[in-house]
C-alpha cells in the first residue's frame, strides 16, 4: 500500500529556462540554466538534464562559474543567498547569506574573493551594483555582509552590465546613457547619447551591453536595432563610437566570442547575427530560430554558443553557426487557446506550442516530444502583426482524427477561418490532411467536439459558432472511378432562435448532443438531428457543459458565467440540483463518474471533485493556485493507484493536470516531498574509470607485465600489505573531490597515522604504486566493509586476488570457500 500523505500541488514541466543567460562549463560538456528555484545542469551533447541543483528558497536570479575553480558554480537568488555548488556531483558546498534580495550575479577572475551582485536596498526601482566579499570559512553557512557599492542607479537586468578587459572596468547602461567604472582609478565616466531628446532618435535607448574580452571596446545594443561600438572611452571627451545596423527591432542581447574576434547579436527577428571583425560587411546569419532571442552566451572553450528563446528553449549552436541541440521546455510563449488535450495514441498532453504548431508533451518523461506543424507557414515575428492563431483542436475516434481551427481576425469584419481535418495514417505513422474547410462558419468557432462513442459507425464532428449555428460534419465516402477516398461533409446545420452557440458536447454513448445557445441548453438526437428538449435556467450564459459518465450518464451539467452550477436530469427533464459556484474549469474524468470543477473566488482557486448524482463534493481543496486556472484535464493513469481513503479515491485511475494563467502546468501528488526530490546521491553512483588515451593500452600492458613480475617476487610481502582502498583515511582522501578537500596540513598526519598501523617495512612512497594494480584485482570492496579490522581483510583480499590471477585448483577453491564462509558468518555477527 502506498502511504498517504496530504495531496499537494506539484509543478510539472519545469519553470522558464530562459529567465537568465545560460552558462557553459569550462569544457563545454554541460550547460547551466536557472529554472525557478532550481539550477539545472544539462549535457550539451544529449540535451538531457544531468542534475537539478536545489537549495534556494526563491527564484534563482543569476549563475556564474567560479573563476578560480571551474568545477564550481555560484548561484544567487531572491532569497538573499549566494550558493556555491559542485555541479559534477550536484552537491551544495557552501551558502553565503547576504540578506537582501539579489537580482543578478557577476564574477571576475581578478577579484579573487568577491563577487558582484545587483541589489535594491531603499527604493523599489533603484538598483545598485555592489561587490560582496566572500569570507573564507570552513563552515557550510557563512554570512557575507561586507558590501561595497560600485555603481548606483543601474538597470535591473543583468544584460545591462558587463565587465570588460579582464575586469579593468565595468560598463552599465540605463535609458540613454552608458556609465563605465574603472576599478583602478575608481572613477565613473558617463556617456549620454547626444540625440536622446531629439525626436528622430527617440528610440535609441540602451537595451544591453557587452565588453570585449581583450580590448577596450564596449558594444551596446539599442531599442532601434542599432549596435554601437564604443572605443577610447578612457577619455570622456575623445571617445568614439561606430554603428552596426542590421536589426530592425530592438537588440535583445549581445555577446563577444571568447577571442573577441566576432560579436553575436540577436533580437525579435529570431536571427542570430555574427559580426566578424566588428564590421558591417562581414556578417553571418543563422535564421529561423523560431522565437525571439532573449539571451546569448558563449562557452569559455569557444566552440559553442547558446541562445535562449522566448518560447522556453535553449539552442546550442556550433561555432560554425549550426544548431546542434535544443533543450526545450514546455512552450510558454503565447496564450493557450486550445486548452489541454490528451492524444489517445501517444498519451501525450497536447496544447498550443510554437506559433501555428501543436505541441505534444510527454507527461511520463516530463519533456516535449515534438511540435506538429499545423499551419505550415513561415512565421514572421514582428511587433504588431496579427498572426493566424490555432484556436481550437480536438482528437476523435481514438486518435485517428484530429480537427484544428485556425483563425485570424484583424478587424471585426475581417475574419479568416479555416478548419482542417487530419487523418492519422497508420501506414506512414503520421497525420495526413484529409479535408480543408474554408470559412466553416461565418463567425468564430466557439466549440469543437467529436463524438467518441465506441459503437459509432461514422465519425462525427460538431462545431458551434458565434454566428448562431452549429454544424454537424460526418465522414462520407468520396470515392470515384479514379480513387478511393473519404472526406468530411456537412450533414446538418442547426440553430436556436439566432442565439450564439457557445458550447457543444456529446453524451458518452453518442446518442445525444447538447448545444448551449447563450443561456439555453438544447438537446438534439444524434440519429435524426431533432431538437428533443431545452433547458433554461436564466442564470447567465453557459460557460461549460458536460454530460455525466457511466452510472451518472443521465445527468447533464452546465456552469454559467453568473456563478451557478446546474445539474439536469435527462430522464425527467428537470433540474436535479444547482449550486452557487463560479466555475472556471469543469472537466469530466474519462475513467470514472467524477467531475472536477475549479472555481475562482476573489483570491486563489479552489478545486471541487464531485459526482453528478450527489451535489455533495467528494473532495475539496482550497487555494490550489494563487493565479487564475485556465484549463484542466484528466489524464488516465497507465497503472491504477490504490488509494483507500475516500478523499484520494478520485486520483486512483486518472491524474488531474491544470494550467494557470502564467502557464505553469500543475498537478496533484500524494508523495512526500522527500520522495519526490530523489536526490542524485541516491542514484546509482558508479565511479568513472576510463582508460583515457590509447596510450594507456600500451602503457597499461607494460605496467601489467612489470606488476606480474613484482607479484611473483614479492608475493609474500604483498600478502600482508594493507590495501590503500581499505584504509578509511586513504580511501576518504582519494574519493573526495579535490576541490572540497581540506588543506594538506590536516591530511598529512591522518595519512601518516593510517600508514603506521602497517607492520611491514614498505615505505610510504611505494605503497600507492604497488597497490595501483592490486586494487583492480581486489574483489571485496564496499564501503561498509571498510570498518573491518585489517587482518581479515588482508587475507581475504589477497586470496581472492590470487584467485583471479591463477586458475583455481580444487584445493584452493575449497580453501577459498572456507574463507568466505568464515567471512560472512562474521558479518552476520556484526
Amino acid at each position, binding site marked *: 500500500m*502506498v502511504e498517504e500523505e496530504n495531496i499537494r500541488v*506539484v509543478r510539472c514541466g519545469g519553470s522558464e529556462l530562459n529567465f537568465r543567460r545560460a552558462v557553459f562549463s569550462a569544457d563545454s*560538456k554541460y550547460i547551466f540554466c536557472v529554472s525557478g528555484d532550481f539550477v539545472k545542469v544539462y*549535457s550539451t*551533447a*544529449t540535451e*538531457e*538534464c*544531468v542534475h*537539478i541543483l536545489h537549495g534556494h528558497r526563491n527564484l534563482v536570479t543569476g549563475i556564474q562559474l567560479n573563476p578560480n575553480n571551474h568545477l564550481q558554480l555560484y548561484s544567487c537568488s531572491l532569497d538573499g543567498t549566494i550558493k556555491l555548488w559542485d555541479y559534477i556531483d550536484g552537491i551544495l558546498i557552501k551558502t553565503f547569506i547576504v540578506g537582501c534580495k539579489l537580482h543578478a550575479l557577476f564574477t571576475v577572475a581578478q577579484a579573487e574573493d568577491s563577487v558582484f551582485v545587483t541589489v535594491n536596498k531603499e527604493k523599489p526601482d533603484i538598483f545598485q551594483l555592489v561587490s560582496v566579499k566572500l569570507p573564507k570559512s570552513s563552515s557550510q553557512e557563512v554570512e557575507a555582509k561586507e558590501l561595497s557599492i560600485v555603481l548606483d542607479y543601474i538597470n535591473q537586468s543583468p544584460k545591462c552590465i558587463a565587465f570588460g578587459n579582464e575586469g579593468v572596468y565595468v560598463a552599465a547602461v540605463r535609458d540613454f546613457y552608458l556609465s563605465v567604472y574603472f576599478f583602478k582609478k575608481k572613477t565613473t565616466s558617463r556617456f549620454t547619447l547626444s540625440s536622446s531628446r531629439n525626436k528622430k532618435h527617440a528610440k535609441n535607448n540602451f537595451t544591453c551591453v557587452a565588453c570585449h574580452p581583450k580590448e577596450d571596446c564596449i558594444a551596446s545594443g539599442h531599442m532601434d536595432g542599432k549596435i554601437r561600438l564604443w572605443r577610447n572611452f578612457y577619455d570622456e571627451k575623445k571617445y568614439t563610437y561606430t554603428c552596426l545596423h542590421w536589426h530592425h527591432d530592438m537588440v535583445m542581447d549581445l555577446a563577444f566570442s571568447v577571442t573577441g574576434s566576432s560579436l553575436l547579436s540577436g533580437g525579435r527577428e529570431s536571427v542570430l547575427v555574427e559580426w566578424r571583425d566588428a564590421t558591417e560587411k562581414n556578417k553571418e546569419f543563422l535564421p529561423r530560430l*523560431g522565437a525571439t532571442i532573449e539571451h546569448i552566451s558563449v562557452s569559455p572553450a569557444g566552440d559553442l554558443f547558446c541562445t535562449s528563446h522566448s518560447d522556453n528553449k535553449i539552442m546550442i549552436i556550433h561555432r560554425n553557426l549550426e*544548431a*546542434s541541440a535544443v533543450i*526545450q521546455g514546455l512552450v510558454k510563449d503565447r496564450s493557450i487557446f486550445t486548452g489541454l488535450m490528451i492524444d489517445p495514441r501517444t498519451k501525450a498532453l497536447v496544447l498550443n506550442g*510554437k506559433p501555428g*504548431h501543436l505541441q505534444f508533451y510527454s*507527461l*511520463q518523461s*516530463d519533456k*516535449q*516530444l515534438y*511540435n*506538429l*506543424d499545423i499551419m*505550415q507557414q513561415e512565421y514572421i515575428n514582428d511587433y504588431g502583426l496579427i498572426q493566424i492563431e490555432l484556436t481550437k483542436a480536438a482528437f476523435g475516434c481514438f486518435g485517428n482524427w484530429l480537427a484544428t481551427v485556425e483563425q485570424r481576425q484583424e478587424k471585426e469584419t475581417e475574419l479568416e477561418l479555416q478548419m482542417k481535418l487530419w487523418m492519422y495514417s*497508420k*501506414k*506512414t*505513422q*503520421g497525420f*495526413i*490532411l*484529409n*479535408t*480543408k474547410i474554408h*470559412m466553416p462558419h461565418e463567425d468564430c468557432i466557439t466549440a469543437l467536439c467529436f463524438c467518441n462513442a465506441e459503437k459509432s459507425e461514422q465519425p462525427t464532428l460538431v462545431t458551434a459558432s458565434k454566428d448562431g449555428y452549429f*454544424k454537424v460534419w460526418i465522414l*462520407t465516402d*468520396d470515392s470515384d472511378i479514379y*480513387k478511393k*477516398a473519404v472526406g*468530411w*461533409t*456537412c450533414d446538418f*446545420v442547426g440553430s436556436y432562435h439566432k442565439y450564439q452557440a457557445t458550447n457543444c458536447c456529446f453524451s458518452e454513448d453518442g446518442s445525444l448532443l447538447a448545444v448551449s445557445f447563450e443561456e439555453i441548453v438544447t438537446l438534439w438526437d444524434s440519429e435524426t438531428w431533432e431538437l428533443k428538449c431545452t433547458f433554461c435556467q436564466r442564470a447567465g450564459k453557459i460557460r461549460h457543459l458536460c454530460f455525466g459518465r457511466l452510472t451518472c450518464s443521465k445527468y447533464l451539467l452546465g456552469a454559467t458565467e453568473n456563478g451557478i452550477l446546474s445539474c439536469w436530469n435527462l430522464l425527467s427533464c428537470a433540474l436535479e440540483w444547482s449550486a452557487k459556484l463560479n466555475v472556471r474549469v469543469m472537466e469530466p474524468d474519462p475513467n470514472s463518474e467524477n467531475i472536477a470543477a475549479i472555481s475562482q473566488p476573489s483570491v486563489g482557486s479552489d478545486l471541487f471533485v464531485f459526482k453528478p448524482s450527489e451535489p455533495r463534493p467528494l473532495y475539496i481543496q482550497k487555494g490550489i493556485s494563487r493565479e487564475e486556472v485556465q484549463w484542466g484535464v484528466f489524464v488516465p493513469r*497507465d497503472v491504477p493507484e490504490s488509494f483507500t481513503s475516500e478523499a484520494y479515491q478520485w486520483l486512483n485511475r486518472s491524474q488531474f493536470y491544470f494550467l494557470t494563467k502564467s502557464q505553469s502546468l500543475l498537478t496533484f*501528488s500524494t508523495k512526500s516531498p522527500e520522495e*519526490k*526530490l530523489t536526490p542524485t546521491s*541516491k*542514484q*546509482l553512483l*558508479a*565511479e568513472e574509470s576510463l582508460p583515457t588515451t590509447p596510450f594507456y593500452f600500451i602503457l597499461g600492458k607494460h605496467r601489467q607485465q612489470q606488476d606480474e613480475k613484482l607479484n611473483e617476487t614479492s608475493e609474500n610481502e604483498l600478502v600482508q600489505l594493507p590495501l590503500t582502498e581499505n584504509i578509511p583515511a586513504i580511501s576518504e582522501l582519494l574519493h573526495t573531490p579535490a576541490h572540497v578537500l581540506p588543506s594538506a596540513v590536516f591530511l598529512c598526519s591522518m595519512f601518516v597515522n593510517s600508514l603506521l598501523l602497517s607492520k611491514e617495512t614498505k615505505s610510504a612512497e611505494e605503497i600507492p604504486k604497488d597497490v595501483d594494480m592490486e586494487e*583492480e584485482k581486489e*574483489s571485496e*570492496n*564496499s564501503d561498509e566493509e571498510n570498518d573491518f579490522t585489517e587482518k581479515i581483510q588482508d587475507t581475504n583480499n589477497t586470496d581472492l586476488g590470487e584467485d583471479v590471477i591463477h586458475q*583455481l585448483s580444487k584445493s584452493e577453491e575449497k580453501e577459498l570457500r572456507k574463507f*568466505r564462509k568464515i567471512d560472512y558468518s562474521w558479518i552476520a555477527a556484526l
Partner: protein
Amino acid sequence: MAAGGGGSGDPLAPAGVPCAFSPHSQAYFALASTDGHLRVWETASNRLHQEYVPSAHLSGTCTCLAWAPARLQAKESPQRKKRKSEAVGTSNQTDLLALGTAIGSILLYSTVKGELHSKLISGGHDNRVNCIQWHQDSGCLYSCSDDKHIVEWNVQTCKVKCKWKGDNSSVSSLCISPDGKMLLSAGRTIKLWVLETKEVYRHFTGHATPVSSLMFTTIRPPNESQPFDGITGLYFLSGAVHDRLLNVWQVRSENKEKSAVMSFTVTDEPVYIDLTLSENKEEPVKLAVVCRDGQVHLFEHILNGYCKKPLTSNCTIQIATPGKGKKSTPKPIPILAAGFCSDKMSLLLVYGSWFQPTIERVALNTREPHMCLVRDISNCWAPKVETAITKVRTPVMNSEAKVLVPGIPGHHAAIKPAPPQTEQVESKRKSGGNEVSIEERLGAMDIDTHKKGKDDLQTNSFPVLLTQGLESNDFEMLNKVLQTRNLNLIKKTVLRMPLHTIIPLLQELTKRLQGHPNSAVLMIQWLKCVLTVHASYLSTLPDLVPQLGTLYQLMESRVKTFQKLSHLHGKLILLITQVTASEKTKETTSPGQKAKLVYEEESSEEESDDEIADKDSDDNWDEDEEENESEKDEDDVEEEDEDAEGKDEENGEDRDRASEKELNGDSDLDPENESEEE
C-alpha cells in the same frame, strides 16, 4: 545451418542484434547494430536520441547490452508500484547502459551525458561476453562469457568482486531471481546459483543447443499455503538457439524431477522475448516472442503445473508493406523487438531495418488470432537530421485533400426534400403525367431537330453534341459546346434540348460553376438561358428542391459578399468623383482667386466659375454612368438568374426576394451618390 543474424560466424550464436528497452516506462530503446554503433531511440517520438561508436567497435563489436535499473533503493525492498507511478517532478532517470563486447570487455555508457562512463576490463573475461545482468538492488553487475566464467562486478568501483567457473562450455545466458538472492546461468544446462556462496542450488537439463534467453515469469509461487523462501515454486522461461520451443521450468524442492514443466512453440528461433510478470495467481503471464522470421507471437497463460502439449500462440503479429499498384506484392517487414508497456495492454513494436527502425505502440487485441499491420516505411530512409534537432513534425498536406469552400456541396448541409407525405401525393399526381409528357416531347423534339437540321447545321449539331456529351459524360464534347460565347447560339441550343437532359445539364452547369470564376462567367449565360426557357418544365418537377439545392447554395454563397461589394463600390465612386470634382474645382478656382483681387468685377467672375464647374461635373457624371451601366449589365444577368431561380423554388423564394431587394437597393445607390455630387 549457419545462422544468418548475429554477425559472427559461430553457428551456435543466437540470432538477432542486441537491443533493449529502458526499464519502467520504456522511454528509450537501445540498439547495438552490427556495424558497431550504439543507437538510442526515443520510443514516444520515434526519434534518434543519440548515437555512440565505441573506440574499439571494429575489433570488439557489441554482443549484449543491458540497462541499469533506474536507481538503487538503498536498504529497501523494491516496490514496483512506487517506482512505476512516479511520473512528475524529478522522474527517475535511466542512465547507464552496459555493453558487452566480443573481446570480453564491458563498457558502461551514460546516456545522460552521452559519453562512456567507465570500462570494466581488468580481471574480467578474455572472450566474448554473452550476457549482462544488473542486480536490481545492490550495485552489482553479472556477466557471463565464452570463457566459461561468470563474473560479479562492483559497479561503484568498476572492479571484479568475484569470478567463478560457470559451466564446462561457454555460459550463454544469465538471469537474477526476483528476490535478488539467486542467479540462473545457462550454457547447455541451466544452473541455479546461490549468490551468497556461489554454490549450485539446482540443475535443469533439456535444451540441446546453447540457451539464448532466460527469464523469471512469476514473482510468487502458485500456491501460497506453504511458506515462501524466495525461490521455490517460481517459474522461469528459457529459449535456445535454433530451438522453436520455449521451455518453462519450475524451481522445486530437491528430489523432484528437473525437466521442463511445459513449453511454448513458435515459428522460428526466438530473437527477443518480453513478458509481463504475473503478480497474483489469477493473473495470466503475457509473453511476447519475436522470432527470427520477423513475427511476434503472443501468449497468455496462467502457469499452474504440467502441460504435456506445447502451447501455440494466442495471437501472431506480422507487418507488411502496402503493395503499391498491381505489380508489386506486399513484402513483410521484420519486427525486431517487442516490449510490453507498463499498462500491460499495449505493445511497443520495433520494426524495419536496424539502422532506421520504426517504433510503434500497438494496442493488444487478443481476440484476433492473427494481426497483420500494413505499414509504409519507404520514407523512413529519408534523412531526419532536421527533425532530430528542431523536433518539428510536418504532417502531410497533399493535393488529394478535399477542399470545401462556401458554396461547394458538403460545406453546408444539403437541402433535404420536403416532408414525405405531401411529396408522395405530388409525385403520384405528377409522375404519370411526366412520363407521358417526356416521351411525347422526346418524340416531338426528335422530329424538331430533324426538321431544323436541314436549316442550320451548326445549331443542330450543338444540341446533339450536348445531349451525347451529357449522356456519356464526355469532357471534351461538353467543353466544345459549353465554351461558346455566342448568346444566340446558346439560346437556340437550349431551346432545342430534349427535356430529360435539362436536369443533367443543370447539374453539369452547377459543377462547372463551382470551378474557376472565369469559366463561371460563361456558365452563367447558359444557366440563365436554361432557367428562362425551361422554367415551366422545371416547376413541374416534384424533387426540384433537392435537385437544385446545391445550385441555390452556390449562388447564395457567391452573392453573399455582393452587398458589401456594392456598398464598397458605391463609396469608392463617391470618393473618386468627389476627389476629381475637388481637383477640378481647385484648377478652376485658382484663376478665380486671382480674379478675386479685382473687387468690382466679383459677380461676373463667379458666374463663369460655376459654369466651368458644371461642365466638369457633367463630363465626370457621363463617364461614371458608362461604368455604372456596364456594371449594371453584369448585375442584371445575375439578377435575372436569381429571378428565374426564385420563381422555380418555392422554398428559397423569400430569401431570394430579399437578395433581389438588396440588389435593387444597391443599384439604386449609385444614382443617389451621383445626386449627392451634384
